[in-house]
């Protein structure tokens, strides 16, 4: 562990005990988040990226979820804490932004109430103080006439406005770590840009670290410093963002990059088309043996079908693939 590591995840494994069998959504991942940095986590839906975030704060119902491994936050293992201790962390040192601003806010409570209850809880201030801090937070996230908006219910606000309110809520206690799970996915493109800009600015002001979970590589390129690529519950590649985009090592990353329309990318002889990763993500109940990407991999070798791929470390990058052994 390096000196400035804020969150360090060791062999995190999250399984769900379902009627059909045991579903391993996160399969022994290791991740480090350093102070002040933004770590991007990408992958297709169902790859375990959201479950990772929910596992960190232990927001999964257990049973059926079973979380194993270590999640060290400032050196303390979140998974070993009592419920009261983890509640002290939630919304205070670590907070979360969710994908759907439409459903993530409670429809029967005013926006101001929803922001101020966290402030009141964690900062031990009175109702009135918490309320004025909540209004202040709304002002910071650039909600117009925040004192009026605070008294309103979520259904009166647009999606972008609600996501601003969510951000205000998440940042109201100046968390040291923000878990942003698809924060812009549900928004219009223009609103997305505003929210990204807002998050960037606030990140500097509050000096918080961010784990940015998304399937949007454009967003990663814009915000993240390092990227971890997940596939079926495993981190298959981790690299500084420029390296990853310039030279993806894992065939899956290659596929992901190949499937984005890249405006401004040079079209080689004008006929290079968008590449798609062949096949579908298999069910987590039918995880392929050995390398779990091999059925869809264009560069699969004999060994990929027989043995688990090794973790290869190379120039500060990590990749889980036989190609680089």
């Amino acid at each position: 562990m390096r000196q400035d590591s804020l969150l360090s995840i060791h062999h995190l494994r999250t399984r769900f005990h379902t009627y059909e069998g045991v579903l391993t959504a996160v399969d022994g991942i290791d991740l480090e988040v350093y102070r002040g940095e933004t770590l991007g986590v990408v992958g297709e839906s169902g790859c375990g990226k959201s479950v990772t975030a929910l596992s960190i704060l232990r927001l999964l119902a257990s049973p059926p979820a079973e979380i194993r491994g270590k999640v060290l936050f400032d050196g303390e293992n979140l998974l070993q804490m009592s419920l009261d201790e983890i509640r002290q962390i939630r919304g205070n040192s670590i907070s979360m932004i969710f994908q759907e601003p439409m459903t993530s806010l409670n429809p029967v409570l005013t926006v101001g109430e929803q922001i101020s209850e966290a402030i009141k809880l964690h900062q031990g201030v009175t109702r009135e103080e918490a309320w004025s801090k909540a209004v202040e937070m709304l002002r910071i996230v650039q909600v117009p006439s925040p004192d009026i908006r605070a008294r309103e219910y979520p259904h009166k606000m647009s999606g972008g406005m609600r996501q601003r309110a969510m951000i205000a809520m998440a940042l109201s206690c100046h968390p040291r770590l923000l878990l942003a799970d698809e924060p812009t996915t549900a928004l219009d493109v223009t609103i997305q840009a505003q929210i990204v800009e807002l998050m960037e600015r606030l990140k500097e002001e509050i000096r918080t670290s961010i784990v940015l979970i998304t399937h949007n590589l454009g967003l990663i390129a814009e915000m993240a410093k390092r990227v971890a690529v997940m596939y079926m519950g495993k981190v298959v590649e981790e690299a500084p963002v420029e390296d990853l985009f310039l030279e993806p090592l894992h065939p899956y990353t290659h596929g992901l990059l190949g499937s984005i329309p890249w405006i401004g990318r040079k079209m080689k002889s004008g006929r290079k088309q968008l590449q798609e990763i062949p096949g579908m993500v298999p069910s987590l109940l039918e995880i392929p043996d050995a390398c779990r990407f091999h059925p869809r991999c264009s560069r699969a070798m004999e060994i990929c079908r027989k043995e688990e791929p090794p973790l290869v470390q190379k120039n500060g990058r990590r990749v889980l693939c036989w190609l680089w052994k």
Partner: protein
Amino acid sequence: MHEMTQTQVIRNPHRQADSQLRRRWAKLRRNKAALFGSVLILIYLIIALLAPILFPGNPSAPNLMKSLERPSMEHPLGTDELGRSILGRIIYGSRVSLLIAIGVVMVGLLVGLPLGLISGYYGGKVDFGIQRVTDTLLAFPGFLLALALVAVLGVGLKNTIISVGISMVPIYIRLVRGCTLSVREQTYVEAARAMGTRDMTILIRHILPNVMAPITIQTSLGMGTAILFAAGLGFLGIGVQPPTPEWGAMLGSGRAYLFNAPHVATFPGIAIFFAVLGFNLSGDGLRDILDPRFKL
């Protein structure tokens, strides 16, 4: 391009897994319950069919020498105020209650099904008229409506069936109309209409089959309610009249002897309870099996 255009990402896989687990569990458990319910109904059916074999003799013949006797070898459930065997009357009472259950549901279906179909299929003024009548009837919930109808029609077995039956009509109309409305807009119905198929044919061939599942569920639950309502009327003395052995009426007359012979009122109530339980359990079970919204 499968992933990048997809906006609805499954954000919370644990929830899916979780709810799937729960549904499976519920289904398994409920079906055991449904099985128990069907067995209960079957037992009552057998009792009703074999009544003369199970209890030879006339269950309504009084024997005043033996009135209000406690349970004994001769009369396992004791005797009532007229010295009649309570067991015998409960056995014959199952005939009355099942007859009521079937009759009530028939009345409800015969009136409610066509009106619901017409209301949902044709819409417009007909629908408006039928719906206002339904609204009005629904302002008198269930038992009160049956009570009001008895006040007009009078007491007795036939009038009990008609009154309770009509009190269920609005429920059937609502149910059938709702299903019809949703099926009417389906492409295959519109196609049939475009081809010039007669309304009657469309109603019977396309719409009716889709209405069958909810109707079956409602019918099972409705039979339980019918027994409860009819027993309630019998208990009040405005339902099936003595000496016909009806469980509710038996309870009603047993009420006067609670102090010295509580068994007279106790056993008919247990008979009602298990019959209604049987219909409710199988209704719930049928819902799990037939209702697509509950399917995995």
